C-alpha cells in the first residue's frame, strides 16, 4: 500500500462525518460551478449575439457616464448611419412581458433591419411596422405552443404571429420580435432604443469606424465588437463575475472552517494512533503530510461531488423555471472548482496537520 493510498483510505473511516463534511464543502463548490456556468453562458450568449446577423459592432450607452439610463435617443441611429464607413445602423429596444404565465423577452426592431438579428424565418413571414404583428423565436413558439396566425396579448392589445424564426442562439430564439415603435409605445418609451446594431461597408476599417462613433458621442456611447468590449461597457457581467468571486471566497472560508473542524476532530480521535506512528519512527513532516493529504482527499472528493451537484442543480433550476438561459460548462470551470477544493483542503488541513505533527509521542500514547 502506497503512502498516497493510505492518505486516501483514512478519511473513509468515519463515514457519517465524511458525508457531512463532503456535503458542506460540495454545496459551496456547487454554487461556484452553477454561477460559473451562468456567467460563462452569458458570455457565450452575448458573443453569439454579437457575432449573429449582419452587425459588425453594437453601440450601447456608456454606463460609466453620469447618466444612469441605459437608453439611447433613437435620432442617434440616423446620425450614426451617416458616419463615414457605416453601411447600416439599426435601433433595438428590448423589454419583456408575462404572456399566459410565461416570461417572454421582447425585441423591437424595424422590419427593414431584421437582417441585423441574423434571424432566419422558418415559418410564415416578417411583420409590418405599422400593424400589431410579431414574429416568435422557435423556442418561444414551442414553449407557448403558438403557431403562425395565432395571437398574443401584450398590454391588452392583440398581436398576430406572422412568422417563426430561428437564430441558433438560445436566448434570441426564446424571444418575440415586433415593430420598434410598437414596443417603444408599449413601454411608454417613445424615441428610445437600448442598442444600435451597426454594419460597416466592405472596404471600411472596423476599428476606425467604431472609434469614429465613440468620438462623435464622447462619454455617451460606447461600441462593442467583442465580449471584452462588452465587459468594459456594461457592468452586469462584471457584477455577476464579482458576485461569483465573492461566493467563491465565502465557500473557501466556510469550507475551510468546516475542514478545520473535521480534521481537528479526526486528529483528536486519532491522538494515540499518531503517538504510535511517532513511536515507529515516522517523522513529524510525514505526519503533517498525511493529515494534509487526507484533508485534500476529502476536499477533492467534495470538489467532484460539488461539480456534479452544481451542473445537475443549475440545469434542473433552469429547466423547471422555464428560463431561456444558455449554460456553459467548460473544463476551465471544472479545474477552477477542483483548484478551490484543493486550496480549501490545504488551508483547512494545515492547522490540524501542524497540531498532529507536534504532538509529543508520550502524551499521545497516554491519551485515552
Amino acid at each position: 500500500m502506497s503512502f498516497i493510498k493510505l492518505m486516501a483510505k483514512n478519511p473513509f473511516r468515519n463515514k457519517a462525518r465524511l458525508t457531512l463534511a463532503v456535503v458542506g464543502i460540495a454545496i459551496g463548490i456547487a454554487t461556484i460551478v452553477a454561477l460559473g456556468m451562468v456567467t460563462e453562458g452569458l458570455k457565450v450568449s452575448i458573443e453569439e449575439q454579437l457575432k449573429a446577423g449582419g452587425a459588425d459592432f453594437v453601440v450601447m450607452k456608456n454606463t460609466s457616464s453620469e447618466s444612469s439610463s441605459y437608453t439611447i435617443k433613437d435620432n442617434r441611429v440616423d446620425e450614426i448611419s451617416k458616419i463615414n464607413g457605416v453601411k447600416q445602423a439599426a435601433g433595438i429596444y428590448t423589454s419583456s412581458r408575462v404572456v399566459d404565465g410565461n416570461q417572454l423577452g421582447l425585441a423591437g426592431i424595424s422590419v427593414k433591419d431584421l437582417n441585423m438579428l441574423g434571424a432566419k424565418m422558418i415559418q410564415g413571414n416578417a411583420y409590418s411596422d405599422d400593424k400589431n404583428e410579431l414574429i416568435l423565436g422557435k423556442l418561444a413558439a414551442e414553449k407557448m405552443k403558438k403557431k403562425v396566425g395565432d395571437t398574443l396579448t401584450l398590454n391588452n392589445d392583440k398581436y398576430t404571429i406572422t412568422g417563426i424564426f430561428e437564430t441558433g442562439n438560445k436566448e434570441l430564439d426564446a424571444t418575440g420580435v415586433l415593430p420598434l415603435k410598437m414596443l417603444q409605445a408599449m413601454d411608454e418609451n417613445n424615441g428610445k432604443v437600448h442598442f444600435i446594431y451597426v454594419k460597416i461597408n466592405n472596404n471600411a476599417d472596423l476599428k476606425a469606424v467604431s472609434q469614429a462613433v465613440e468620438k462623435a458621442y464622447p462619454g455617451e456611447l460606447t461600441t462593442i465588437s467583442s465580449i471584452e468590449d462588452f465587459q468594459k461597457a456594461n457592468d452586469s457581467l462584471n457584477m455577476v463575475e464579482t458576485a461569483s468571486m465573492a461566493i467563491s471566497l465565502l465557500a473557501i472560508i466556510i469550507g475551510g472552517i468546516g475542514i478545520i473542524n473535521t480534521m481537528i476532530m479526526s486528529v483528536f480521535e486519532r491522538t494515540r494512533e499518531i503517538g504510535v506512528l511517532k513511536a515507529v519512527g515516522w517523522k513529524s513532516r510525514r505526519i503533517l503530510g498525511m493529515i494534509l493529504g487526507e484533508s485534500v482527499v476529502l476536499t477533492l472528493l467534495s470538489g467532484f461531488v460539488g461539480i456534479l451537484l452544481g451542473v445537475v442543480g443549475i440545469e434542473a433550476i433552469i429547466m423547471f423555471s422555464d428560463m431561456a438561459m444558455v449554460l456553459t460548462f467548460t473544463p476551465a470551470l471544472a479545474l477552477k472548482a477542483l483548484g478551490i477544493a484543493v486550496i480549501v483542503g490545504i488551508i483547512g488541513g494545515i492547522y490540524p496537520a501542524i497540531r498532529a505533527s507536534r504532538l509529543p509521542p508520550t502524551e499521545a500514547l497516554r491519551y485515552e
Partner: protein
Amino acid sequence: MNNGNIVEIKDLKKGYDKGRIIALNGININIKKGEFVSIIGPSGSGKSTLLNMIGALDTADRGLISVAGNNLTEKKDLSDFRSKEIGFIFQLHNLIPNLTVLENVIIPMYGTGLKGHEMVSRAIELIKYVKLHDKANRNPTELSGGERQRVAIARALANNPSIILADEPTGSLDSKNGQMILQRLKELHEKENVTLIMVTHDLKVADMAQRTIEVLDGKVQN
C-alpha cells in the same frame, strides 16, 4: 557502545509538571546487546518512563542516555533512530483499526527507502513469523486479543530493530494468550539475538528474563 553495552544510562533524571513530579531520579543502568531484561516496579515507580527514554519517546532533564551508539541527550530529531533501532510493543496493541494486518505491519516501513513490493514481502514474512498468514487481509477488529498482540510484534520487527521495548505486553491478555505472546518474545530473543527490554509488574513474567531491574521511586534498587 562500550563493553558490549547497547544501552548505557548515567544519572538519568526526569521530572514532570515543572519538576514537581520526579519520575526518574538518577538512574544508572547498562544493558548488553542481545540481553533479555525485565524492568519491574509498582505503578508510578518510573519504569514506563525509563522505557520511553530508552525508546527516545521522551527526553531527559539531566544525565546521559546512549542507545545503540546514539547519544539521545544530544540528538534533536530522533525519528530515524526510532525507525532503525527500536521496535515498540505496547500493552494495548495500538493497531490502526481501518488498516488490514498487512498494512499495519507495513506502517513503520514508510520512509525507510523500501519499495512497495519489498515492503509487502517483508510484511508477509513477518506475518508468517507470528503465524497469522491466513489473516493478513483481515482488519484488527476481526482478530482476538492475542492475535492483535502478535500483529503488534510483527509490526515491531518491521525494520529489523536492534532493541525491542515491550511495555506490559501481556497486560491486556488472558493467561493463555499472555503465555503465547511471552513464548514468541522469548523465541525472538533466542533465535534473532534481539535485545529485549520488557516492563512488567508481574514477577512471574519478569522471571522469564535473564536479568531483572527493579525501579522504585525513580531509582534502581540494588
